[in-house]
């Protein structure tokens, strides 16, 4: 009878949730659209800006260089540079984006003086994409000029090119792609799962408690024969469902977005950064996050039940985001590793463990300790939620 009653409440809450535009937006639409917009959309805009900066010839100014006409001529002939001569101060011109960069050619550069090794100075607007692009073009020009000059000098001295570059340096990755993924994006996925577990549970938790008080349906349901324990468990299961669906949709959406981006990169540039994350690792993350979602769902139900209205519930729950985000972000910081003591810190423990799981590292003792401790926290949260549903001062707070 008890499971039947919990099921009846759950099915009714699910039906209502599926008919509620706000729940559908927060649980389904936002997680599906968030990552394509953030990754593909923002990536597309950024790529467009970079392409525009690459395509557009940059207006630059040359300072000095009267005794290096070939160098000046080379700069003037450069395809992507337009050399202008302006009487005004180059700093003002760069600041006002009238020109993108200026280059100061030291005396005696072309004649091969170079005895005092005065540098070629490039003046630019740091942080401005078009200015940075212009500075890079000028730097590339002078790198080529320097290499040609060095090659000519070696040839004149009858020395091989290896005289100046006797050996190469090459970095080689020796660990698996999973471990690389763990270090690069390993912190993001648990962060995402944790935050989405919380945000997915937020709206339904408020709707099923404070919303019910606001709509005056709390007394209606309390007059039915269902026990308050079964009632809260039915509501809790719906909140948990919303939490897990939001997290699952977010990770799926992020996976698809990443795949699309890698695919586009391969098509456009022929190469892309390959990040391999196994399905098993993602499922492990969800398994570990399950008791955390239980804890969030029960805690949110309890907090929202205190509120008299939906607005009041929002003001109680909003600070909870910070409480969750801080430990979730802490796990992404370099140097924060899983220790026995940290294994007992809620949220941070799951976040750190998930990072290991994504990297393909399975420390079974830690997994057991974290899973069990989070189950205990989740159980305590459910117990408190049930207790709160039995308190008249909370249910009929006015």
């Amino acid at each position, binding site marked *: 009878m008890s499971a039947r009653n919990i099921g009846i409440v759950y099915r009714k809450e699910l039906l*209502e949730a599926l*008919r509620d535009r706000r729940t559908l937006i927060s649980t389904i639409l936002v997680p599906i659209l968030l990552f394509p917009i953030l990754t593909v959309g923002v990536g597309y805009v950024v790529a467009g800006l970079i392409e525009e900066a690459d395509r557009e010839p940059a207006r630059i100014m040359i300072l000095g260089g009267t005794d290096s006409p070939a160098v000046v001529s080379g700069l003037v002939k450069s395809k992507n540079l337009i050399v202008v001569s302006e009487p005004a101060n180059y700093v003002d011109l760069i600041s006002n984006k009238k020109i993108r960069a200026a280059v100061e050619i030291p005396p005696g550069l072309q004649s091969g003086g170079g005895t005092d090794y005065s540098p070629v100075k490039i003046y630019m607007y740091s942080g401005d994409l078009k200015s940075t692009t212009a500075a890079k073009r000028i730097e590339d020009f002078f790198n080529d000029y320097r290499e040609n000059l060095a090659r000519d000098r070696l040839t004149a001295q009858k020395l091989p090119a290896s005289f100046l570059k006797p050996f190469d340096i090459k970095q080689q990755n020796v660990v698996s792609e999973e471990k690389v993924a763990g270090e690069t994006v390993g912190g993001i996925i648990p962060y995402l799962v944790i935050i989405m577990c919380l945000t997915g549970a937020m709206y339904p938790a408020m709707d099923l408690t404070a919303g019910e008080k606001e*709509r005056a*349906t709390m*007394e*209606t349901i309390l007059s039915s*024969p*269902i026990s308050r324990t079964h009632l809260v468990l039915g509501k809790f299961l719906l909140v948990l469902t919303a939490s897990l669906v939001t997290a699952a949709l977010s990770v799926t959406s992020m996976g698809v977005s990443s795949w699309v981006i890698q695919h586009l990169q391969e098509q456009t540039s022929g190469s892309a950064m390959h990040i391999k994350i196994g399905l098993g690792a993602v499922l492990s993350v969800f398994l570990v996050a399950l008791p955390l979602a239980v804890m969030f769902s029960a805690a949110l139900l309890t907090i929202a039940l205190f509120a008299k209205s939906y607005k009041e519930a929002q003001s109680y729950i909003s600070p909870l985001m910070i409480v969750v985000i801080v430990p979730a972000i802490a796990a992404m910081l370099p140097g924060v590793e899983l220790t026995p003591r940290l294994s007992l810190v809620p949220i941070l423990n799951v976040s750190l463990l998930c990072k290991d799981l994504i990297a393909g590292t399975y420390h079974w003792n830690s997994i057991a300790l974290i899973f069990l401790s989070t189950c205990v926290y989740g159980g305590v949260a459910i117990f408190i939620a049930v207790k709160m549903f039995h308190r008249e*001062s909370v249910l009929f707070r006015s």
Partner: protein
Amino acid sequence: MIDARSLSKRFFDKKRGQICAVENVSFTCQPGSIYGLLGANGAGKTTTLRMLATILEPSDGTALVFGHDIVEHPERVRSSVGFLSTATALYPRLTAQEMVEYFGRLNGLDEATLKKRIDDIFNRLDMNSFRDRRCDKLSTGMKQKTSIARTLVHDPPVMIFDEPTLGLDIMAARTIVAFIRECRQAGKTVILSTHVMSEVEKLCDVIGIIHNGALLAEGTPTQLREKYQEKDLEEIFVKVVSPHVGAEVS
């Protein structure tokens, strides 16, 4: 039958301290009759009825509702009770039929019985034209009918009405009054709270006058008229309550 035995309810308020909403209230309601709990706002009517419906737990005392103790077996009590008040709203995103089905299932009805009962009730209350319409799209009268259907779906032997016509227009109020009479005719035990004298005169077989949480007078309308030598119920109410106005029940 309802047998309230020394029911008391105390609340704690941060500003006012301990508040006694109901103190030592005892009365009996018989099947096939309507008991009217008459009192001003804040007299303790709603708290008393909420205790009988087991929505609130008594601080002291108890009551038997259809033979079930409200403290010992609250779930059995709720299975025997239909509770209707202006505070028992409908779920806005459910249709009228889904709303009634939900409460039928919570009352343990199997699907075949539930379907039959819903068809009967919807025909009787003329609700078929809006059975698939969402509750937030219903008119006040339609909402009242749906609320009535919700309370009737498990055919409870005891009906509790807490100011059932409060805020309703005349037509919606008439529907409720007619429904309360039907319940009496069907042999149900009916208790209702109100501060509308005309409603009490029209409906109630026994009247209990409650003030500051205490039951001050009780009897049939005839008995009360004889005792207080007044024809008008409003005058009787004023006579009963006046000596206690301003007095605090601690």
